[in-house]
């Protein structure tokens, strides 16, 4: 137990995981056509960043990073509420959720 607890996971692993999650979020954002999946990719990116915040906070024994994570989660929750409302409104108007067909602003 002791040895397990004393042997901490190095921070680079957290950061690597965070980078992988973020990249997966970016790739999902870029290649997925469904708006809800795109939305989930954004959440993934946010949480990847959260992970690196928490890891650093633990590393440096600073509480600021953890507080920031709360902020991010709060904003993400608000964003989810607004974003889902927009998605529903878009679906009602266009009867589709494919992002490449929601392009009214195109020249």
């Amino acid at each position: 137990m002791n040895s397990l607890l004393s042997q901490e996971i190095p921070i680079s692993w957290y950061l690597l995981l965070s980078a992988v999650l973020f990249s997966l979020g970016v790739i999902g954002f870029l290649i997925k056509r469904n708006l809800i999946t795109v939305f989930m990719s954004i959440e993934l990116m946010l949480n990847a960043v959260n992970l690196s915040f928490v890891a650093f906070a633990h590393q440096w024994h600073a509480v600021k990073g953890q507080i920031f994570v709360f902020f991010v989660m709060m904003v993400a929750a608000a964003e989810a509420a607004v974003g889902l409302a927009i998605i529903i409104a878009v679906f009602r108007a266009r009867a589709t959720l494919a992002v490449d067909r929601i392009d009214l602003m195109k020249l």
Partner: protein
Amino acid sequence: MNGSLHLWLIPLLPFAGFLFNGLLGRRLPKALVTAVALLTPLAAFGVVLNAALGFFGIGPGLGSLPYVETCPIGWINLDTLHVDFSFVLDQLSLVMLLVVTGVGFLIHVYSVGYMSHEEGYGRYFSFLNLFLFFMTVLVLAGNALVMFVGWEGVGLASYLLIGFYFQKTSAADAGKKAFIVNRIGDFGFLIGMFLLLANFGTLTFSTISQQLAANPGWQGGILTVIALCMLLGATGKSAQLPLYIWLPDAMEGPTPVSALIHAATMVTAGVYMIARTHVLFDHSAFALSVVAVVGAATALFAATIGLVQNDIKRVLAYSTISQIGYMFLGCGVAAYSAAIFHLFTHAFFKALLFLAAGSVIHAIGGEQDLRKMGGLWRKLPVTFAVTTVGVLAIAGFFPFAGFFSKDAILYAAFLQGGSGKALWFVGLVTALLTSFYMFRLWYLTFLGKARSEVVHPHSTPWSMLAPLVILALLSVCGGWVGIEHFATFLAPSVGTRPTEAGSAHLELILSIVAVGVALLGWFVADLLYRQKPTRPAELATALPGSYKLLANKYYVDEFYGATVVKPLLATSTYFLGWVVDKAMLGGAAWLLGGIATFAGALLQRWQSGNIRSYAAWLAAGAAAVLLFIVVPWPTVLASLSAIHFGVAGH
């Protein structure tokens, strides 16, 4: 006397009138406009008269002139160039000012009657006041630059007044013609001024005179060039060969304007300028002889054209050109005082003739064609009487004003040696022609049978008659002062001629010859236009070539049109218009616009409206920034070059 003359009032009073009528004249009652327009020149005349009386009040104390007034604030102050707003009152400018403000005021009074039914009454008087402002600046100028201001200004006023009836294309064109032809002369004046500055380091007339007086051996050379440049300026403003062509067209303006600007004052500015800068001409015999030849040639040339013109104002215009030719002839034989004397008397009788012509035109409803007049003496007795005086004066009959001044010029020319005799002869022939065409005008206008029904013979108001009568009196007695007194008076300004080998006897003979010639002209006119009115037409058909040549004014306008105007227009249209404007400037504009359009067409694809493409660019950008920050470029580059050199080393 000095110190309280307030010369600056002379130009500024008319200028105030110009501002007042020009800004407010449209909204104010006519009476107020008239009052301001008349009172400002009258007040200016009063200032001049005050100065003149002060001068004569001291008697022969010539030392009190010239009187200089300089604006305390300098104008141009550079290392090498100091120019002040300085006004000089000397004998020459005093005479000229009396003419300008005196005759100017009379013509203002006349205009009140003449222009009473016209549109733009306030505008007319504001322009007339503006003219007086610039003309007095020109006359009072103590240096060439101030004179140039007045010189350009009278050109502007002339342009505005020629084109007064701007709705008429011919009037607008005549204004432009006058302005553009004058530009050529002004170019000469400017070059002359630059040369003066380069060679004397100053533009002040009195300093230039002093420098030349201190250096009597300086003859010809650059002085000839300067004098000829000045002469070019004078030929433009004074309508001499080869730049006279604008003056006949300038008759499109209202008749009082023709009288004031294009007969009495502005067109004589060239003569005044030559008299003002006479020291330059005195130091260049060649330039003087050019002045004399230009004057004599113009006098004869314009007089021959005047013989066959049918427009009453054009006859007078050509006679003006011819008379100014006399003045140039006088200047050319260094008889400046005689030239100014002729300027003085000419201002009276030519203004009189123009105003009389104006009152004829006014009375018969705007008709200017001599062929449609005739028999008017019964309907316009006063006009007839004053015109008779004017005709006698310009023809040079004793004891009218023109006799004395013309005689003075011819006498001075005759004494000028061999070439002077030729000039004298040309002047004499011109006198014959002058007498002929003036009596022709007189017969055609007033005598004989009426050749057209006068629809509504206007009665001539007193405001038109009074100036006519005053000018008629001046045309009679204006010359009585005599050239001797006049020359003595002017001597401090324009110098005296070298002693002449003349005698009273010779002068008497020459005067008798001149009067005889004038009588001959009258006789021929009488023969042709009173005794046998059909004969002129017969003569014209008998000599079709020469008649056509004269009636078409020697085709000079056509010649200038073909040699100057057409090539200029062609260059402007084809080279400047098509090559420079359309091809080069337009092409450059099209090129820039095209580049912008093309770049926009390329870049607009970026803004696809596709969120994922934006996100991809965003990601790519973030990746690029990351790459830039994270990768240790200096190390990488160093290692890369090390590899490179390592390879090269082997």
